[in-house]
């Protein structure tokens, strides 16, 4: 597998993004270490959930002894973007056996999604989509798990003032930029950003859902207006 050219290409293109992944992984790990859930459970969560934003969102709820369903509802809201990713991956992976699809699904993340759509803007039969996906996804997975487990174990030794979390935010900002492919997509991004800030006070991270709904609605309207003009 490692010798396949598209696997290598995916892995190599994921490497520069690994710095953002590592920064964010460290921050998430430190946050988990400080949550008093204990090292074994923190590591278990990192490995089986593998979704930084959902993990960070769950920590204050777990610390506050919130009901389980509240944590799960929050996880659902934060994870809805993965649903959008899987919608985009469908044409590329729908022909694979079910187990394979589930395994690939587990490895979906922000970084490898953006790299993937940049490399394959449209589905063309015969491209080695799966090799590329696995290359970039496994590099991201490795970088994430190493850094988050380091954060969990080293925990209190890393001061918050270093602002390493900002590198993770910058990585997401850079990923957002790559998705600005048309004026309508820029408008959708601005609408989503404003809506997420405006609706921030909503519980369960519903602000992300409000933002996606607003941006999709504006995008549809703008596309239609553009088609008529």
């Amino acid at each position, binding site marked *: 597998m490692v010798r396949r050219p598209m696997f290598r290409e995916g892995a190599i293109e994921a490497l520069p993004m690994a710095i953002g992944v590592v920064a964010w992984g460290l921050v998430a790990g430190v946050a988990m270490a400080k949550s008093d859930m204990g090292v074994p459970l923190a590591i278990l969560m990192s490995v089986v959930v593998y979704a930084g934003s959902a993990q960070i969102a769950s920590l204050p709820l777990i610390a506050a002894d919130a009901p389980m369903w509240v944590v799960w509802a929050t996880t659902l809201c934060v994870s809805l973007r993965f649903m959008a990713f*899987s919608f985009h991956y*469908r044409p590329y992976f729908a022909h694979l056996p079910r187990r394979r699809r589930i395994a690939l699904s587990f490895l979906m993340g922000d970084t490898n999604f953006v790299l993937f759509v940049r490399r394959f803007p449209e589905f063309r039969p015969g491209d080695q989509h799966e090799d590329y996906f696995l290359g970039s996804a496994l590099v991201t997975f490795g970088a994430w798990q190493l850094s988050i487990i380091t954060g969990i174990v080293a925990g209190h030794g890393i001061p918050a003032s270093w602002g390493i979390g900002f590198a993770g*935010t*910058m990585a997401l900002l850079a990923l957002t930029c790559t998705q600005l492919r048309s004026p309508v997509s820029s408008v959708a991004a601005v609408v989503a*950003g404003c809506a997420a800030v405006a609706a921030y006070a909503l519980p369960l991270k519903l602000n992300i859902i409000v933002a996606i709904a607003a941006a999709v609605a504006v995008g549809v309207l703008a596309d239609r207006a553009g088609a008529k003009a």
Partner: protein
Amino acid sequence: MSSLEVFLTTLGMAFITLACRSFFLLPKQDLPMPPWLREGLRHAPIAALAAVVAPELVMTQGHLIDTWRDARIFGALAGLAFYAWRRSLFGTIICGTGAMLALRFTLGW
């Protein structure tokens, strides 16, 4: 929460995230969906990313910042400028984080 509760919560979270990730990959047939929604969903990933990034840049403790002297804003602008110039993901991260740290440690923003 007790350790057992945290354990069960974690398993539930794992199931929910995997269900979201595989949602459109699992069904054999394409899910019936009106064309406008199919078109609109193309904007969903960028919207989701922007919705995660924006509060990180302009909010502190759940409130909108009330000063322009915030190192994060200038870090983000530096990152955006670098992206517009070079289209490099790696450079954007380095430039934005560097600008933020420089302002924080020199001016204390």
